[in-house]
């Protein structure tokens, strides 16, 4: 009975969508990169950079949407580094991605510490506020669960449709998908394989950074060390789970968010019987299970991880 009560509460779905939001940005970003044939393990660091840069910009007075833009630019910058190393230079996508994560994380921490040398408690900004849309926000249930989220959550949901539309309904999307499956055919059409791949990685990384920015500018109001805490890696797992489709990415992130919101509520019910760490492990365990479930039929982009060089047949 109690479980049903939890699942039927609007506040539960409100939390689930809030938890899902950074993952939606992250999975969309990762799938754009991977559709073009580039695995981007820089994601964890790019989340950190987006969280720090966006927050810092707002803290310096750029305004919230200015912060979002700065976060996206920071993500694009680190994406460009990864893209140059892995696309024209064709270096190991695994190692370059880890390198970008280490670089983006340490640079973010260094910048934060240098700008704010001796603060004992992190300074706060005024984050995005819950929307108050006439009529919609007053609807029963869905008004609280969906239409009282912040503007960044709405942006994430819009991005799902935009990404899906671009990938499946435009010539550009066709080219991006082709460059991740069969780059030589794209070159034969007179399109630039390098240009498409680099562009996809830069744009995908900018989307990832928005996931980080959501954490410091919407879910919380400050930047903490270690706040990303594996969210980026979870997104890489969810991308496989979503079979590289934006719609399924949304469903995967929402399922994940629902599960996470559920375990937090379960913890208050039965927390006395289990150590808190058991609950904290759940998201990571769930991600691994999700990977195992889809592993057999996972349809990886065919040219994922495979470098391509100009003039190669």
């Amino acid at each position: 009975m109690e479980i049903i009560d939890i699942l039927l509460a609007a506040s539960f779905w409100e939390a689930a969508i809030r938890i899902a939001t950074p993952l939606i940005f992250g999975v969309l970003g990762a799938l754009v990169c991977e559709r073009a044939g580039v695995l981007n393990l820089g994601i964890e660091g790019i989340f950190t950079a987006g969280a720090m840069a966006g927050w810092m910009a707002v803290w310096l007075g750029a305004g919230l949407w200015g912060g979002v833009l700065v976060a996206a630019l920071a993500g694009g910058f680190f994406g460009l580094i990864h893209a140059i190393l892995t696309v024209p230079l064709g270096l190991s996508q695994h190692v370059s991605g880890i390198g970008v994560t280490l670089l983006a994380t340490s640079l973010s921490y260094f910048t934060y510490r240098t700008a704010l040398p001796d603060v004992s408690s992190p300074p706060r900004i005024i984050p995005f506020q819950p929307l108050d849309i006439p009529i919609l926000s007053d609807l029963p249930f869905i008004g609280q669960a969906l239409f009282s989220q912040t503007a960044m959550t709405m942006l994430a949901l819009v991005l799902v449709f935009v990404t899906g539309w671009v990938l499946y309904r435009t010539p550009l999307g066709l080219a991006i998908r082709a460059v991740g499956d069969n780059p030589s055919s794209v070159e034969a059409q007179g399109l630039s394989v390098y240009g498409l791949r680099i562009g996809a990685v830069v744009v995908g990384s900018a989307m990832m950074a928005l996931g980080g920015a959501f954490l410091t500018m919407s879910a919380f109001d400050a930047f903490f060390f270690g706040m990303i805490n594996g969210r980026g890696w979870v997104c890489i797992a969810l991308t496989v789970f979503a079979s590289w489709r934006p719609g399924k990415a949304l469903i995967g992130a929402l399922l994940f968010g629902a599960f996470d919101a559920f375990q937090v509520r379960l913890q208050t019910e039965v927390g006395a019987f289990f150590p808190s760490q058991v609950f904290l492990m759940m998201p990571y365990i769930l991600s691994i299970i999700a990977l195992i479930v889809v592993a057999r039929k996972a349809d990886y982009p065919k040219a994922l991880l495979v470098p391509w060089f100009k003039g190669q047949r």
Partner: protein
Amino acid sequence: MIRFEPRSNPGPVLVYGVPVFAAIFAILLAAIPLALAGAPIIDAYGLMITGAFGSVFSTSEMLTRATPLILTGLAAAIAFRAKLWNIGAEGQLYMGAMAAVVVGTGVIDGPSWVMIPAIMIAGALAGALMLIGPTLLKTRMGVDEVVTTLLLNFIVLLFVQMMLEGALKDPMSMGWPQSEPIIDSAILPPLLERMRVHLGLIIALVAASGLAVFVKRTVWGFEIRAVGENAAAAKFSGISVTKTMILVAALSGGLAGLAGVSEVAGTRGYLATDLSPGYGYAGIVVAMLARLSPVGVIISALFVASVFVGADSMSRAIGVSSYLADLIVAMSLLCVLIGGFLTRFKVRFDRKKTAG
């Protein structure tokens, strides 16, 4: 137009010089963040050098730092050779440390020559098992090991935290979540009086030499290299890819587990969740700087350890964030990647012909 031409045979100067140049270049690049932080650059570099090499004490500290880095560097090097992307050395390190604590805090007691091998075996086994799991998932079911090993790092750390607040908690720790101390006979003894550098360094050096011989001179070593270079061809020539992968996983996870044993029984004396400041991840940098050579790992671990100890001491002295060390280490990974490219390819600048 820029063109890349493959080099047929890069000479030894290029092969060995490039990682050194990449490391130096990364250190020089650190001048930019230093300048932006408003630090006196020349002084900062001077302080970094004296911080790592200025005295017997600082060199001992540097070697103490290098010890786990050699082991996690070897763990990454052997795995990456077989293209087993083990990014989970951090978790394997903690499992190794925890196994050492389970065995080495009084459950059994004996002379050092029994206890030290006992905790080493326990730690290596625990680390190995932590990687064999994801490896089996990869070979049997096609589950990407990068993501599973990465996620396991977080699971293990929470698991360690849980054990330190529960079954392994030291009742005498005044409420801190830490384990009971390792008993004296299982402690890795210091190599120099009143210094921290300990037997773990010798273990790490022996492990590096042993691995070098193993990779170069044994059939298994040959099979590992063959699988790494071309798994399909290796399979065709009768090598069992699955068996080789599991062997690699046992070695790699075991080495990372040993790093945990060395830290817990040599440096710290007890287990806490801040045992490793990311030695598992830094091991990847160490391995790449070493171009995956076991002997090279020793040199690159010394370099990374010097950066950490030198930059830490410099940042304390002039008040620059100690994240500078992590920044230099990350930059040296990216520099050595680009350097590796330049050893394999010549860069040519062609002038485009203009019509007319």
